C-alpha cells in the first residue's frame, strides 16, 4: 500500500500544479498604476511556493515508494549528513527566500501605503453602511459638508447626515451610489464607516482596505482603464453582507465632467 500512497501523492502534486501552470485561474486584468508590483510579487511567490510544494510532495512520494514494504532485517540507513545538513538547508534556503520575498514585497506595499496622494488628487468620500456604499464629492466649492450622525435619514436619502440648511459647504455636495472617477487621474478615497466594519475591494484595482468605525482612513489609486468594475464588501458586516456592492465607473475626463454637471444640476 506504500507504493499506492506514493503514486497518489505524485498524482495529487501534479494535479494541484496543473491549474496553476496552465493559468486556468487568471487574476483579473489590472487597471491600476500600482497593481503590477503586486502581480509580480504573486508570481514570484507562486514560483517559490510551487517549487517548495512540488519538491516536498515528490520527495515524500519517492521516499515512501522506496522505503515501504522492505523485508524484515533489511539494513536501516540514515540520511547522509543527518539533521545538521537539513537544518542548515532550511535556514539558508528558506532564509534567503523569505528575505527576498520580504524585501521585494515591502516595495509593493510601500507603493500603496507609504506614498502620499498627489496634491491635485481628486478627493472622494466613501461611506460604507449596512449594506451599501455611498460616495460623496465636494462639489464646485471643493469643501465637504460636516457629517451629523443624528441627521442621517435613509428614507430621505440623507445618507451622510448633511445639514444643508445650516451648513454652506454641504449644499453643493454630490452623493452617488457609484464611484465615478476620471481615467488616469489620481483619486484619494476618504473612508468612513457609518455603522460596523466593512471593506472596500476592487479586484481589478488590486485594492482592499477595511472601513473601521471611528477611524478615518484614506487610500489612493489611479485607474488606467475606462470601464465598470465591481466594488464589493469583504468584511463580514451582517446579514446582507454578500449583497453589499457598488460599481466603480471609470470615465474619460470629458464624460466625468459632464457627469459632475448633471449631478450638480439635480
Amino acid at each position, binding site marked *: 500500500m506504500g507504493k499506492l500512497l506514493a503514486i*497518489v501523492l505524485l498524482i495529487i502534486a501534479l494535479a494541484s500544479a496543473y491549474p496553476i501552470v496552465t493559468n486556468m485561474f487568471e487574476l483579473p486584468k489590472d487597471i491600476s498604476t500600482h497593481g503590477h508590483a503586486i502581480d509580480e*510579487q504573486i508570481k514570484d511567490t507562486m514560483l517559490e511556493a510551487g517549487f517548495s510544494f512540488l519538491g516536498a510532495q515528490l520527495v515524500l512520494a519517492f521516499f515512501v515508494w522506496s522505503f515501504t514494504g522492505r523485508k524484515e532485517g533489511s539494513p*536501516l540507513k540514515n540520511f547522509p549528513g543527518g539533521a545538521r545538513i537539513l537544518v542548515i538547508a532550511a535556514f539558508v534556503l528558506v532564509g534567503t527566500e523569505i528575505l527576498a520575498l520580504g524585501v521585494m514585497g515591502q516595495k509593493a506595499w510601500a507603493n500603496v501605503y507609504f506614498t502620499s496622494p498627489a496634491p491635485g488628487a481628486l478627493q472622494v468620500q466613501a461611506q460604507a453602511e449596512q449594506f451599501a456604499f455611498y460616495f460623496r464629492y465636494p462639489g464646485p466649492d471643493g469643501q465637504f459638508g460636516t457629517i451629523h450622525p443624528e441627521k442621517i435619514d435613509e428614507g430621505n436619502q440623507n445618507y451622510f447626515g448633511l445639514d444643508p440648511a445650516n451648513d454652506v459647504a454641504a449644499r453643493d455636495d454630490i452623493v452617488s451610489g457609484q464611484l465615478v472617477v476620471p481615467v488616469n487621474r489620481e483619486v484619494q478615497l476618504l473612508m468612513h464607516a457609518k455603522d460596523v466594519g466593512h471593506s472596500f475591494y476592487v479586484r481589478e484595482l488590486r485594492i482592499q482596505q477595511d472601513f473601521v468605525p471611528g477611524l478615518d482612513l484614506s487610500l489612493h489609486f489611479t485607474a488606467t482603464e475606462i470601464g465598470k468594475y465591481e466594488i464589493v464588501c469583504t468584511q463580514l458586516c*451582517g446579514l446582507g453582507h454578500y449583497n453589499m456592492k457598488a460599481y466603480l465607473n471609470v470615465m474619460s475626463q470629458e464624460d466625468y465632467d459632464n457627469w459632475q454637471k448633471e449631478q450638480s444640476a439635480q
Partner: protein
Amino acid sequence: MVTIVGSAAVLERGDPMAEGSVEQAHVQAPPEGFLRRYVFSLDHKVIGKQYYGLALASVFTGMLLSWLMRIHLVWPAARIPGLELLSKGGAPGGIITPEYYLSLLTMHGTLMVFFVLTNAPFAAFGNYFLPIQIGAEDMAFPRFNMMSFWTTFAAWLVLMLAFFIPDGPPISGWTSYAPLSAVGRDAGPGMEYGMSLWGISIALFCIGSLLGALNFIATTLDLRARGMTLMRMPLSTWAWFITSCIALLAFAVLLPACILLILDRHAGTSFFIPAGLVISDRVQPHAGGSPLLWQHLFWFFGHPEVYIAILPSMGIISHILVNSLRKPLLSHKVVIYSMMSIGFLSYMVWGHHMFLSGMNPTSALAFSFPTLTITIPATVLVLIWLGSLYGARIQINSASLFALGFISMFVAGGVSGFFLAQPSIDIYLHATYFVVGHFHMVMGVASLFGVFAGTYFWFSKMTGRMMDETLGKLHFWITFIGTYCIFMPFHYLGLIGNVRRYQSFVDDFMAPYIGWHKFITVCALLTGAGQLIFLYNLIYSRFKGKPAAENPWNATSLEWSIPSPPPWNNFGGKHPVVYHDPYQYGVKGSKGDFVMQDSPEQVIVSGD
C-alpha cells in the same frame, strides 16, 4: 548485570518517593459509584475520553453545518427537510436564509476551532497520555482536571443553546469583530441573545483551557518518573507541554476580551464601540471605544490558537512516525527546539490578520517578517520528517498513513502561507477563498490527520481492542483525496478574487466558476460521508474489535508497558524507572528491534 546507556541523569534526579503527593495518590482506592467513575471522574484517562467524546460530537455537528453551507452555496433553493424544525425563521420551509447561512458559518467556525481543534489533539489525547508517557499516576491536580472538562462542557452547552433560542445563533463569524458583535439587537438576528451566549461560552472555554494548561505544565514539570529527564520525554508529550505554555498565555488574553465584550453588550461600557455609529437607524449610545482593540486582543489569542491546534498533532504524528519507521528521527532535539521556536514566534505575528485593518502600515512590515520567519522552524520539521523516512523500514497501517498524510497536508497548506504573510499580496488575497483553503488545510485538516493517526494508534491502549485496519485504510483514502479535492480549488478560486463569507455568488465574474463550487460541494458531501466509516469503526471496534495486546505496535514509550486498557492508577501502584531515550528503535533488544524506555537492558546500537 544491568548496564544503563547514556543515563547519568537517572542518578541526578531526586527520588520521587520522597515527594509525598505522588505516594499518597495510590494509597487511595479506585473510585466507586457510577458518578465518580464515569461522570465526575478525577481520572485523567476518563477525562481524556470525555474530551474526545465532546470533540467527536462537535466535529460531526460542525461537519453537518458545513454540508448545509456547501449545499446552500450551490443550490440556494434546495429544501433541507427538517431544518425548519430547528429554526423557523432561519430556514422557513427548510430553505436557508442569508442570515441563517451566517449563523451556520459562525457556529461551524466556533465549534471546529474551539471544541474540535483545541479539544481533540490537545485536551483529549494530552489528558489521556501525557501522565502515562511520563510515568505519572495522574495529573498534578485531578480536581482541576475534572473542573476543566466540565467547564468546557458547560461552554459547549451554552454555545449549542444558541441553536434553540428564538433569536438564533450569532451571525458575526467565529472572529466576532466589534462593533457588529458589541451593539446587540441592532446588528441583526442572533445578535441579541445568540451573541451573548457566544461570549459566555468562549469565556467559559477560556477558563477550562487555562485550568487544563496549568495542569499540563505542573504535571510535566513535577510528576515525571525516575529517569524521565525532559529530553527523554516522547515528542507527543513535548508537544502537549509546549502547547499548554502557549495556551496559558493565549487564553489569558481571550478571557478578558470576552468579558469586555459582554460588558459592552450588557453593562453599557464602550470598550469596542466608538462614537457616532448609526445602526438600524439608531444612533448608538456609546462613545470612546475602538474596534481595533477587539481585533488586537482576539488575534493575540487567535494566532497562537493556530499553533495550539497544530503543535499537538505535530507531536502525535512524530511519535507515530518514529514507530512506523522502526528507527529514530534524525534528531530528537531539533524537533523539540523547532516546536519551541514555533510556539515562541506565534506570539509575534498576530498583526498579519490585520494588514488591512487600518492599523499603522509600518506595523504590517513588523508583523510580516516574523510571520515569514515561522517558515524556518516549520521547514526544519518537514525536512526532519522527510529525511527520517530515508533508509527506514516504513510500516504501513492506518495510523502511519495518516501520519504521512499529515506531512503532505501540512506542506500543501503551509506554502500558501508564503502569500498571506506578505502584506502586499494580502491586499489582493485577504478575505478570499485563498485564505479559507489555507487555514482549512494547514490548521484544520492537518490537525485532524494527527487526531486520526492518534486514534488508530492509541485506540487499542484506550479500549483494549484493535480498530479495524481495512476500514481505517479506506477512511484514509477517502479523507486524503477528498480533502485535497475540496481545499485545493479554494486556493484557485481565491486567486480570481472569490470573496469568502458570502451566502451567494452575486458578483458577475463568478458565473463561470460556479461549476467549481459544485465540484467542491460534491466532494465535501462524499468526504464527509466517509467520516461515517470512521465513526462506525470507532463504535464497532469498541465492542467487537479484536482484543489488543499490551504492545501491539512494538513501541517503546511507557504507555505500551502497561495493560490495555490501563488500570485505574496506570502503573498498578509501581513506579516506573526510565533508562533510555524515548525512541530506541532499530536496535537489538530482547523483544525485537526495539528497547522500551523502562527496560533496564543495554542498548547495543544507540540511535540518537
